[in-house]
């Protein structure tokens, strides 16, 4: 037995640990202990991942089952490790949040804490399987498992959340079927090729073998394009790429608090991971003659798949961000932003140079941190006030200052302003766009950032700033069990903003695993030919500016006094508590008035069309069965006999 344990390398231990976490989450009936135990287990997992990252290199699992004539295998390289780190980290923080008071109240409401924990652990496990897959079949199997696990987690909230989860499931399953078609296609062709070349067909679906087959030209260019399209659609659905994004916002928004934080942080990024694997590992897009850069010309312009993808990414940035602006529910707002940020990631990666791809990949980490932070902060507000409706909140800064700080830091990160980490990844992407001369894309990305800044300001303003409502007078800050993860995240956002070199190391490992060019990263940022960024300096400049202002405010200059917000008068009247002097309803009324005609609900209409088509065919087919048509039968016979 000890020999067996000895045989376990780190990947095996990670997977085993993960499986144990699932088992304990399911089996542990003592609910107030399970929260703590599970958190510790996640911590252990994080430690293992950390060890793997610092060790560098590739870890392959000893688990290689032979199923149905195919050999499956699991292997973690730099890219997978990067995503696994984020996954386990998000899970750890989410569970930490749940472990204390939040979990207690959840149980008091009669809901199953055990189910929540188990599903979360299951999600982590299946995601790890996905991130460590090394051949097409294990990729697909773990993809399906992860999708269904995510569905279960979303469905747990019941009611509208269940409906949103079902909506997700249809999208995800359709996408999975597209991927399945391609996998079967490749499998059939590969097996035949292996047979002809007289090599062992069992490992034929490994990424490396498939890449070789692609290079040997087993598939013609149009076939490759078709495959690529199907795969991109299939994986892009999970990622929330336009036009398949309609499911994501309600599904994440309506899921249970900390679960929403986890899902929003990392779940959809798995689609990105799969796309990276497909684009770079299988189709070998780095090389010049690759499919991604091959152009198929029209008369007036030639379009490459790369350009197309870049534009889809930009569309994904712009549209959901402006939809977010219209949202009145904090969670929906954040969820729509989540979709938009995915566009940045894809945009950076599609540029395929050292800065852009680093920016795209780094954005995954950054986004996870502030999305989790924001979601947790909003969940805390919901916990205390019972609502996330932006038209019903206000002035909570005085009651929940630490939550406010978390939200503030998260927002600055989301908007991509220094000194937070969001700024770094966005800068890298912009730099890459400018370097490659893609001015239109650059403008598109900037519009997205503008929209982000506007809508997150609405978020913080409506929630925390302004005047406190009467019903929220008694609200207090949340307990330490819930504050801890939020503060950890805030610190993380700040630290990785100041010293982006730390996450950039991990990014570098991920990029080199895939074959993308890596730039020189230092602690403060990057030194590249096109330009350099040193966050330490930037932040110092920023803080010195604040520092000067603080100096002036606190020490020099006039005295300040604390006043009650109602100690004021306007228009000749004193202020009354019963009136609200907080402008929050219909925020951005002017802007909305301007851009309202542009909201055409196009994508929803598209979706409606597809569904209606389905319904129409179903209806007409059912007529076939409804009434007994003897004439029909005779007709059939005639047809058959003529055949």
């Amino acid at each position, binding site marked *: 037995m000890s020999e067996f344990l000895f045989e376990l390398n780190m990947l095996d231990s990670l997977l085993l640990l993960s499986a144990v976490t699932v088992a304990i989450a399911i089996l542990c009936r003592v609910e107030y202990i399970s929260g703590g135990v599970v958190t510790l287990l996640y911590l252990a997992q994080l430690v293992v991942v950390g060890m793997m990252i610092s060790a560098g290199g590739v870890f392959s699992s000893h688990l290689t089952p032979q199923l149905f004539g195919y050999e499956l295998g699991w292997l973690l390289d730099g890219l997978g490790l990067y995503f696994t780190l984020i996954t386990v980290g998000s899970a750890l923080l989410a569970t930490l949040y749940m472990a204390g008071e939040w979990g207690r109240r959840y149980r008091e409401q009669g809901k199953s804490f055990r189910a929540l924990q188990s599903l979360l652990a299951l999600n982590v496990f299946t995601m790890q399987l996905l991130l460590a897959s090394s051949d097409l079949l294990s990729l697909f199997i773990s993809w399906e498992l992860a999708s269904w696990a995510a569905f279960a987690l979303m469905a747990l909230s019941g009611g509208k959340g269940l409906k949103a989860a079902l909506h997700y499931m249809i999208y995800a399953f359709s996408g999975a079927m597209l991927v399945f078609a391609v996998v079967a296609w490749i499998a059939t062709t590969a097996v035949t090729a292996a047979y002809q070349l007289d090599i062992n067909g069992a490992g034929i679906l490994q990424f490396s073998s498939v890449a070789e087959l692609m290079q040997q030209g087993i598939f013609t260019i149009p076939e490759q394009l078709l495959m690529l399209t199907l795969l991109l659609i299939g994986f892009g659905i999970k990622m929330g790429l336009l036009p398949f994004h309609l499911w994501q916002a309600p599904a994440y928004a309506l899921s249970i608090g900390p679960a929403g934080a986890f899902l929003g942080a990392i779940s959809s990024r798995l689609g990105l991971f799969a796309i990276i694997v497909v684009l770079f590992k299988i189709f070998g897009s780095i090389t010049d003659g690759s499919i991604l850069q091959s152009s198929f010309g029209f008369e007036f312009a030639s379009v490459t798949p790369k350009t197309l993808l870049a534009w889809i990414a930009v569309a994904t940035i712009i549209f959901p961000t402006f939809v977010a602006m219209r949202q009145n529910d904090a969670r929906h707002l954040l969820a729509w932003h989540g979709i938009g940020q995915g566009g940045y990631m894809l945009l950076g990666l599609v540029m395929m140079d050292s800065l852009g791809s680093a920016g795209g990949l780094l954005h995954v980490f950054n986004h996870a941190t502030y999305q989790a932070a924001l979601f947790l902060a909003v969940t805390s507000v919901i916990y205390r006030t019972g609502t996330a409706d932006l038209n019903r909140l206000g002035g909570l800064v005085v009651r929940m200052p630490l939550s406010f700080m978390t939200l503030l830091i998260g927002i600055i990160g989301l908007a991509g302003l220094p000194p937070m980490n969001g700024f770094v990844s966005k800068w890298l992407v912009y730099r890459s766009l400018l370097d490659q001369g893609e001015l239109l894309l650059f403008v598109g990305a900037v519009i997205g950032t503008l929209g982000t800044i506007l809508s997150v300001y609405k978020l913080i303003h409506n929630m925390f700033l302004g005047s406190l409502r009467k019903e929220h007078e008694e609200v207090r800050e949340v307990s330490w069990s819930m504050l801890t993860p939020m503060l950890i995240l805030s610190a993380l956002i700040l630290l990785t903003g100041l010293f982006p070199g730390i996450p950039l190391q991990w990014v570098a490992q991920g990029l080199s695993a895939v074959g993308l060019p890596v730039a020189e990263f230092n602690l403060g940022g990057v030194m590249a030919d096109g330009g350099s960024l040193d966050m330490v300096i930037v932040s110092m400049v920023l803080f010195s500016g604040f520092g000067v202002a603080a100096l002036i405010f606190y020490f020099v200059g006039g005295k300040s006094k604390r006043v009650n917000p109602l100690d004021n008068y306007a228009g000749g009247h004193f202020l009354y508590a019963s009136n609200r002097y907080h402008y929050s309803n219909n925020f951005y009324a002017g802007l909305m008035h301007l851009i309202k005609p542009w909201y055409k609900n196009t994508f929803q209409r598209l979706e409606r069309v597809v569904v209606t088509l389905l319904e129409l065919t179903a209806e007409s087919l059912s007529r076939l069965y409804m009434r007994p048509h*003897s*004439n029909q039968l*005779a*007709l059939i*016979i*005639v047809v058959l*006999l*003529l055949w």
Partner: protein
Amino acid sequence: MSELVKRVEWTPLLFSVGLGCLLLPLFLALPFGNSPMVAGEMIQQAAQGVQGAVVDSVGAANLVTSVVLAYRGLDTLGELAILFAAATGAGMVLQSGSAALHQNTKMHKHIDSEINLGELFDSAATMLTPLLLLVGVYIILHGHLTPGGGFQGGVVVAVALFLPSWARNGGGQLSHKVISRIEGGAGASFIVIGLVALWQGDPFLTPWLAQGELGELFSAGTLPLLYLMVGLKVGAELAALLKYLAIDEQVQS
């Protein structure tokens, strides 16, 4: 006449007729071909006692019987079972419920006494019943010699069994118990006769018993026995079926 025009649904009728006209030439065009009489020749050779015939002769003068009961005995068993299943099913529908099963015998007496089909029918029934019975049994027993056999004779026997219960003073209810015992027993006997061959180490339904002389009543081995069982079963079944239908009519009217 005008009522007829109104009551009949013309559109579907015309459509069906048209379709039928379309189907007919199509059916005729089907490649039915001229069949090579492979099996037929084999049987004839066997029957004529040609040396080296592929199949064995069974000793029945009526070749049809030899096919039905010997060469294709399993098919016949299947057909028997079909009739049985159909009768049972029909019985289920007509009786709708096993409670009626027990009341059946009681209903008999009640209903029968109310039937009055007239003197003519009563006397005719009394005279015809033994005649029908005799003819039926004759057809059954001579199935291996002359055209006829269990199925045909069984139908006649069925009528013979059923007729008296319609006549007022003919007496004799058709007891359900007896009917089902005959039915079950006959069917079982058919199978048992086949099973005996199995016991003897031969395949199922191999004819045993001496073949005797061609054309004699006691010839062709077990074939007459099989036909007897068939006849009894069919007779009992159809009689019961007629009874159900009759009662059903009575109950409804």
